[in-house]
């Protein structure tokens, strides 16, 4: 084996914060190494040093034995290191080919050789099974396709070492699966890869070797075959992490009932006649591959859109109006699917984000004037009770990590004491410790007597939290099965639209539970 990449004794400090301390790491040709660590463990900083975005205080980076000059990303590209950023560095209005070709030719060349660029792109796309249309506009592509373009961009620069920063953070489960197939293919063809992740199942299924980073230091290195999810989880968090257990449900009255609701898709797939009941004190899990109507369903229950047909009954009654203020007043709390877009306003302060949803309540304003002291005190209480770290009441909320932002949103929703809670993809992008925290809060809400509508594409999460589970497929809901009967295989069938087994199970269940 040849050693293609070697990081030796890297130390990087930002002021008093040590992001990386004496980190050493190597990569052999044709190998896939997972860099595992919680958010804030220093994974991204380490890779940014490798790629020349930051300069290490101490330590060296070698590619194929030659030392890289620090702080020059052009040098890393020339040496054959490519980075696929977590936030895509793409131009939405330009074509795939244009995005890929930028910066690959001398700037003052009189004519850009598009034909050659196109040929090279198509050749790469064929060799690695990354199908793209070179002339397509980036804005018209799905997230998964955008990522393909990002990878192709690195390959186009003749990268032999590829670094992927949390490549699945924005992908659906299926897209992630196909990505990992591609990565294995690339490794088999001689490329060497490092992918950064905090998701254990990915690391277990896609890597040859795992390097665990905690608080800026390498705490362990394991061959993937010789380790287990449990061991890795413990190494990563530094203590044994247990997701909370679900106590038995004590279902009460029906809080929310959909009767044959149809709704044309609003930025998502349409709902084609769905019916379900949500009881007090229970969690109804909606499992499904993204793009099957989840976003529309969450929007419907949150009050964003009224149903086109059928009825949505809240506590047995049709709401006077289907809009957000009425939904909130009726006791519906929402954890939005995309916390950065719908959940928070990045450039506003933590306290403003914490109270904005209920700014008209007498608690936070009177006669059109905001009660700043009360608002800030309430925010302070959320930060304390929900263990939101790194946040100040007056600081901009975009500076928070995903996990802490989600804790704040949970705190904001749950302190209002909702009767119905819509949780859309509540643990997407969070690390193991944060997921356990979110799950605990959702179970608490249910224990308090709230009805929780959990919309998720994570099988483990849905099975762990839900009392009953329905699959959403093409805008329709499957029959409900009790969580005790659920397993990956059955849910997989349900998500694929085969509901015969589920129908049978539902028929066996006592009628009041449907």
């Amino acid at each position: 084996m040849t050693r293609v990449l070697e990081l030796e004794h890297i130390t990087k400090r930002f002021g008093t914060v040590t992001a990386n301390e004496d980190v050493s790491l190597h990569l052999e040709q044709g190998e896939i190494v997972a860099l595992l660590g919680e958010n804030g463990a220093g994974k991204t900083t380490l890779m940014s040093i490798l790629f020349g975005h930051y300069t290490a205080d101490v330590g060296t980076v070698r590619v194929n034995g030659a030392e890289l000059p620090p702080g020059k990303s052009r040098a890393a590209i020339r040496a054959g290191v490519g980075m696929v950023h977590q936030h895509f560095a793409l131009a939405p209005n330009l074509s795939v080919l244009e995005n890929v070709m930028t910066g690959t030719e001398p700037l003052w060349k009189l004519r850009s050789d598009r034909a050659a660029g196109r040929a090279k792109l198509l050749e790469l796309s064929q060799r690695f099974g990354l199908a793209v249309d070179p002339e397509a506009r980036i804005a018209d592509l799905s997230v998964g396709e955008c990522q393909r373009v990002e990878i192709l961009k690195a390959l186009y620069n003749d990268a032999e070492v590829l670094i992927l920063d949390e490549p699945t953070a924005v992908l659906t489960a299926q897209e992630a699966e196909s990505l990992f197939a591609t990565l294995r293919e690339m490794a088999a063809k001689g490329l060497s890869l490092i992918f950064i992740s905090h998701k254990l199942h990915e690391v277990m299924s896609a890597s040859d070797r795992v390097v665990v980073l905690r608080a800026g230091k390498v705490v362990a290195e394991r061959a993937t075959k010789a380790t287990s999810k449990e061991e890795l989880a413990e190494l990563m968090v530094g203590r044994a992490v247990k997701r909370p257990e679900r106590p038995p449900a004590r279902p009460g009255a029906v809080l929310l009932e959909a009767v044959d609701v149809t709704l044309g898709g609003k930025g998502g797939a349409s709902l084609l006649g769905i019916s379900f009941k949500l009881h007090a004190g229970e969690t109804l899990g909606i499992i499904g591959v993204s793009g099957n109507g989840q976003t529309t369903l969450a929007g419907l229950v949150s009050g964003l859109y009224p149903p086109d047909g059928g009825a949505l009954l809240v506590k047995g009654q049709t709401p006077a109006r289907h809009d957000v203020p009425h939904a909130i007043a009726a006791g519906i709390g929402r954890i939005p699917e995309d916390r950065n877009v719908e959940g928070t306003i990045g450039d506003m302060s933590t306290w403003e984000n914490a109270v904005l949803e209920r700014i008209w309540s007498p608690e936070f304003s009177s006669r059109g004037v905001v009660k700043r002291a009360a608002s800030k005190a309430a925010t302070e209480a959320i930060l304390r009770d929900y263990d939101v770290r790194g946040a100040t009441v007056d600081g901009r909320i975009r500076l928070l990590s995903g996990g802490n932002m989600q804790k704040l949103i949970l705190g904001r929703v749950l302190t209002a004491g909702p009767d119905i809670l819509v949780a859309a993809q509540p643990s997407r992008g969070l690390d193991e410790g944060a997921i356990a925290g979110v799950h605990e809060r959702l179970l608490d809400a249910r224990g308090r007597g709230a009805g929780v509508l959990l919309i998720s594409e994570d099988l483990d999460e849905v099975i762990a939290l839900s009392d009953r589970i329905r699959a959403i497929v093409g805008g329709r809901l499957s029959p409900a099965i009790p969580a005790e009967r659920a397993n990956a295989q059955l849910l997989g069938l349900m998500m694929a639209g085969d509901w015969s087994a589920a129908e049978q199970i539902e028929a066996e269940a006592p009628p009041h539970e449907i």
Partner: protein
Amino acid sequence: MSLLFDILSSVGMWEAVLRIATPLIFGTLGVLLCERVGVLNLGIEGIMTFGAMVGWLTVYSGGNLWLGLLAAAAGGALFGLLHGVLTALLGLSQHVTGLGITLFASSFSYFVFRLAVPTASSPPTVEPFRAYPVPVLSEIPFLGPVLFNQTAPTYLALGLVAVLAYVLYRTPLGLAIRMTGENPHAVDAQGIDPIRLRIGTIMAGSALMGVGGAFLTLAAFNSFFPTMVQGRGWICVALVVFALWQPGRALLGALLFAFFDAFQLRLQTVVDGVPYQLFLMLPYVLSIVALIVMARRARVPQALMQPYRRGER
């Protein structure tokens, strides 16, 4: 109706369209370049005034006409450098900086003008560009005098449209410019410095604005007065939106505006009983209408007005 026909069929009318459009073409291409790289340049009104003054002053003090245009370009580029440093390097508000440059450049132009000619009661004149009939082509009936009996800077403006379109869409530099206007992070990740690219492009765009201004003093008229740009710069900013940030459409937009302007001038002289101010309004009203129609389909450069700072998202 025959009145309208008389206006529309006169060679003079169409010849004027191209003449009126020339400074707009220069200015619009300048703004277009700046915006393609992600920077709004509201300094244009002032930079055009400065270009008009510098161009005129160069010729007035004995330089030849082409040297005048060159000086106007250099003067524009200098203000472009200032705008670039303030907005691209220091990340200041592009609106405020641009308006500041317009105010400063306009007043500064008048100041320099007064220093140069302290006593004149009527503005001193220079010998401007004369129409240059292109051999053979200008003999074509109707089209000949309209298209091929213009001043040299007009030919230059038309040629620049093609050159700029080629640079933007066919060269690596143009791709890097467009990419910077869309996502400077991506450009940086490929090893090109988006801040230097922005400053350079703003300077080039501002140079074009300067030349556009100089056309007024060295071809359209033959003297300088401080209010002569008369909002043409603002029209260019609007025309870029109308053009959907494409050079070919920018030419079309400039010609369209110029057409209405030439048309209303002639209407003023033949229609009685309507206040002439109403006719003056015509091109502006119509450009707002055109803007509404076109801007709905606009694909705005995604990083327009967003300062780029390394390491921040």
